[in-house]
């Protein structure tokens, strides 16, 4: 757990409460924010106000409200505590997002194994079944293919189901449903049926969970046409992406990570929805663009601390949207730094990193000063033994070495 804790330390050092307020008060009118809503909620374009006191940076400053800094005092009045917002863990943030959407829209329902009476194996749906009833928070038998199919059918007939896979690996049993029905139905029916389903669950390499329970399904699902994939990494984006995924009319697969559920962060009290297709600028920089997502973000931020001490200035982007890639944010960054390092947890062959490498090379080849370096997990099943397991995933020292090599 040490790596994660240090990673959190790095992340919170960069995420000061001030920056969150400033983020809130941005009414982004850039074309990237596709899901603006009326009423109290609004879209936040995560345009990287998280830095060492570097406010007012970024090319889009001219679009924002001029009294952005002053807005901090206004929002502070909403909360009685000295810092605005409330602190919670990532799984609680997911639950909060889910609950808010279930309150707002009666067609939102949850189904999965042990989500109801047991409260969810990672406590994401705890307390929802007593509140909304057994049918709206449905405990299913252990048959992923069947209940994913049921969720898709529910979506076709007008509900907005949230299907939970207890572990992403179990969704392999539902691959047929996800590929053929979820992804392709809107197309093959000529647009008649829409599938506003959210399939979510924890994946990734945990603490010695064994080969079958440590799979990275994003690499298997990424070719399915018709679905959207997002990966959350902080309580803030977990809640925002959950809400956005539920509101989206497309089928969305939300990848959570087993080791990130207990991350703590202070998130705003006000309602917010994030953009599903947008990447998050975690740390602006000049020398190299590091693209990452989910748990590897924390390994990258830990490596970033070391790199900064060594005099490098890495730009870290959490790509969040795994399908489609946010090539706008990524491209802007590549054009600035000319060097790309991708750090992912997928395997070397056919992972998200491999697709991202291809996409960047195709689109931004002229801007690259060096070949793209992609750090990924080994092409082996995840072994149970702890030492071997650590060797399969990318560790911070390896990221530091890669950046040093890249920036020579």
């Amino acid at each position, binding site marked *: 757990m040490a790596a994660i804790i240090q990673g959190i330390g790095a992340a919170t050092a960069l995420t000061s409460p001030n920056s969150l307020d400033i983020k809130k008060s941005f009414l982004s009118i850039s074309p990237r924010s596709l899901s603006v809503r009326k009423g109290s909620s609004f879209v936040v374009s995560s345009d990287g106000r998280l830095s060492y006191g570097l406010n007012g940076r970024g090319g889009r400053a001219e679009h924002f409200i001029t009294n952005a800094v002053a807005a901090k005092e206004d929002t502070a009045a909403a909360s009685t505590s000295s810092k605005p917002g409330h602190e919670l863990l990532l799984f609680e943030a997911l639950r909060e997002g889910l609950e808010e959407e279930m309150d707002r829209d009666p067609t939102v329902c949850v189904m999965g*194994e042990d989500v109801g009476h047991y409260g969810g194996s990672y406590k994401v749906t705890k307390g929802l079944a007593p509140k909304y009833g057994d049918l709206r928070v449905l405990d299913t038998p*252990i048959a992923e293919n*069947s209940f994913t199919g049921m969720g898709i059918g529910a979506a076709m007939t007008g509900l907005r189901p949230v299907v939970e896979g207890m572990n992403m690996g179990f969704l392999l049993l539902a691959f047929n449903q996800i590929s053929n029905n979820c992804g392709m139905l809107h197309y093959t029916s000529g647009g008649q049926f829409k599938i506003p389903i959210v399939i979510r669950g924890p994946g990734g390499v945990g603490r010695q969970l*064994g080969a079958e329970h440590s799979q990275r399904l994003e690499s298997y699902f990424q070719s399915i046409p018709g679905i959207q994939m997002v990966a959350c990494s902080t309580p803030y984006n977990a809640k925002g992406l959950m809400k956005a995924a539920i509101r989206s009319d497309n089928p969305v697969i939300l990848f959570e990570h087993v080791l990130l559920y207990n991350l703590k962060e202070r998130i705003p009290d006000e309602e917010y929805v994030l953009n599903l297709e947008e990447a998050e600028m975690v740390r602006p920089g000049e020398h190299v663009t590091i693209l990452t997502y989910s748990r590897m973000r924390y390994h990258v931020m830990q490596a970033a601390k070391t790199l900064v001490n060594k005099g490098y200035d890495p730009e870290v982007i959490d790509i969040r949207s795994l399908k489609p890639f946010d090539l706008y944010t990524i491209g802007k960054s590549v054009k600035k730094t000319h060097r790309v390092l991708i750090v992912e947890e997928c395997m070397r062959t056919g992972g998200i990193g491999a697709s991202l490498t291809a996409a960047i090379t195709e689109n931004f080849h002229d801007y690259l000063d060096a070949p793209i370096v992609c750090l990924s997990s080994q092409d082996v099943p995840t072994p*149970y033994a702890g030492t071997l397991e650590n060797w399969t995933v990318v560790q911070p020292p390896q990221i530091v070495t890669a950046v040093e*090599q890249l920036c020579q």
Partner: protein
Amino acid sequence: MALSTNRTVNQLLKPLTAAISATRCLSSDSTSIITVESSLPFTSHKIDPPSRAVETSPNELMTFFKDMAEMRRMEIAADSLYKAKLIRGFCHLYDGQEAVAVGMEAAITKKDCIITAYRDHCIYLARGGGLYESFAELMGRKDGCSKGKGGSMHFYKKESGFYGGHGIVGAQVPLGLNMAALWDLPAILVCENNHYGMGTAEWRAAKSPAYYKRGDYVPGLKVDGMDALAVKQACKFAKEHALKNGPIILEMDTYRYHGHSMSDPGSTYRTRDEISGVRQERDPIERIRKLILAHDVATEKELKDIEKEKRKVVDEAIAKAKESPMPDPSDLFTNVYVKGFGVEVFGPDRKEVRATLP
């Protein structure tokens, strides 16, 4: 004739005659046959159930007791090891269900194959696996049965026909059943019905929890899974049936004392009274102990000594496993393919760990 039936009844229910009880050393009794009645009659579906009278011998009863005591100790030791963080990840414990494993083994041979899901520690032991290999695997050491690369859910033993040990399950029984029935395959589908699917009770997950009937055209038998002798009888019966007529379903009515896995307290969806009630009334080891004592096969003290010895054996295996080495880093790449293609794998920095897949 009233007299002979009376004697037969007495034979079933009363202990062995005084002549044998005078010389109570085990060796003289080991070949004699004891007939015991199973605790409950078998309920069956589309087949005539086997008789309740099970033939066993003192030797067999002692073997049952020893094996079950070893399994129980192993699972309890695994519980403490998990809490001490020597075992990580997922750990699904089998205590309470030992009768199914030993009863099955008594009815089949090592040439018959078994495949199961993730609750596989005791089935591995029953198939001839060693305590040391089990603990080494659980702690992720090189000497484990899967070389430390599998973990709790991936125990295999090819020589004894044990095909594992699998983590992801779901809906394989109906599909397998259909194919076995279609082609008259000699398969026995055993449902270890511990009444809970992870955290959900069976009546909330299945319209008809009478799983032995679910085969429809496939005959089924419901067995008291806490009675090792009933399990043995049912499995013998099932094996004969499967070899002649095709698949059969055995539903073992059993119970697990621990939660679904070590991360499940096991008390949020059932009461502690329920667990202790089952432990008091239906515990498999207690039942065999009572049978042994009732038939004067061994004394109370001898049984206690056996349990102590098993405890010692388990502790020794754990101590040895704790000392055993972790796998080499090069083991990361072994056994990915049977015959490697010389595919190069390299670590993230392209220098540190560079190997060709053997």
